[in-house]
C-alpha cells in the first residue's frame, strides 16, 4: 500500500486515489498537422523508466483534485507530490545507484 501525500489533504492511503498515467505529456501544439503515427505516439506511447517516474494521481474520495507524484518504480517510494501548476521537483538522491 502506498502512502501518498495529497498537496491539499495530506498523507492518505493509496485506496483513496485514482491513477492517471504519466504526467507532463503535452497536448500537441498543432494537432491538425500530426501524422497518424505521431497521434498514436501521443495517445498510446508512454515512458517506462526504471527509477523516478512522474505520474498523475487524483484524490477521488478526498478533495477530488488531480496532482502529480514522483514515484520510484523500483522501490515504489513516493519521492514527492506536487500540484499541477508546480514544476517537477529535482530529486538529487533519486535514481543514483541502480
Amino acid at each position, binding site marked *: 500500500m502506498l502512502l501518498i501525500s495529497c498537496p*491539499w*489533504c*495530506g498523507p492518505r492511503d493509496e*485506496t*483513496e486515489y485514482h491513477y492517471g498515467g504519466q504526467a507532463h505529456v503535452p497536448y500537441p501544439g498543432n494537432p491538425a498537422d500530426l501524422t497518424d503515427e505521431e497521434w498514436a505516439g501521443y495517445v498510446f506511447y508512454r515512458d517506462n523508466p526504471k527509477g523516478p517516474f512522474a505520474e498523475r494521481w487524483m484524490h477521488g*474520495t*478526498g*478533495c*477530488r*483534485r488531480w496532482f502529480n507524484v514522483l514515484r520510484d518504480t523500483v522501490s515504489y517510494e513516493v519521492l514527492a507530490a506536487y500540484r499541477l501548476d508546480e514544476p517537477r521537483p529535482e530529486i538529487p538522491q533519486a535514481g543514483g545507484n541502480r
Partner: protein
Amino acid sequence: MAEPMNAEGAGAGSGTGAGAGPVALRISPLAHLAARMHTAAVTGPRGVTLTEWPFRTMVNLRVDPVSEAADRVEKSLGAPLPRQCGHTTASGPHTVLWLGPDEWLVLSQAEGTDGTAVAAELRAALGADPGSVVDVSANRTTLELSGPAARQVLEKGCPLDLHPRAFGPGHAVSTTVGPVAAPLWQVDDVPTYRLLPRSSFADYLARWLIDAMSEYRGPELP
C-alpha cells in the same frame, strides 16, 4: 377530475399540516433500517448507537477562495469559509465543511428552512461571479455514530488516524469507511461522529456499521 391529487388529499395519516406538500411524502434512504439501527444500540462503557438524521439541508458551494464573491458568501453565512482540509466553521444554524480548495458543503439545521432557501441566499451572495451553489440535500443522508466505542467501530474500516491527538471535535474529512466514500465529521468528545454517505450507499454503510457494532454487546476479549 374525480379526486384532488394534492398531498393533503392523498396523505391521510401523515399528520402534517396544510401546505406540507411533497415534503410529507418523502422517505429517507434509511427509513427501512430505522428499527435495526435502534436495536443495534449498545449501552454501557463500550456503548455505541447509530441513528439517521434524514433530510438535513446541504448546499454544495464552489467559489474562488480569494475572490470578492467569497467575501460576500462569508458575510452571508456569518462564518469564514474553512481554508484547510479537515477544518469546519460554524455560525448559527450553518456549518461549513471543507471539501476541496475551492469547494465546500454547507450544512444547515435551521428549522423551517429547506435547501432552496439557503441556496437562494448563497446564490444571491455569489452574484454573477464564477462559482456555483447547488442544493444537494437529497444527495446524501446523515448517519450519527455515538458512544465510547464509536471510534473503535470506525477504526475497523477507516484509514484515517482518529485518535484525539490527530482528530477531534470540529474536524471533518472526506474519507472511506469500509468501501464507502463519505465525509466524516466529529461533533463532540463522546465521541459522536456524523457520516454523510451518498443516499444510494447509505443502506450498505448502515448495515456495515450495524455489523461492526455488534461485537461491543459482549464482554471485551483480551
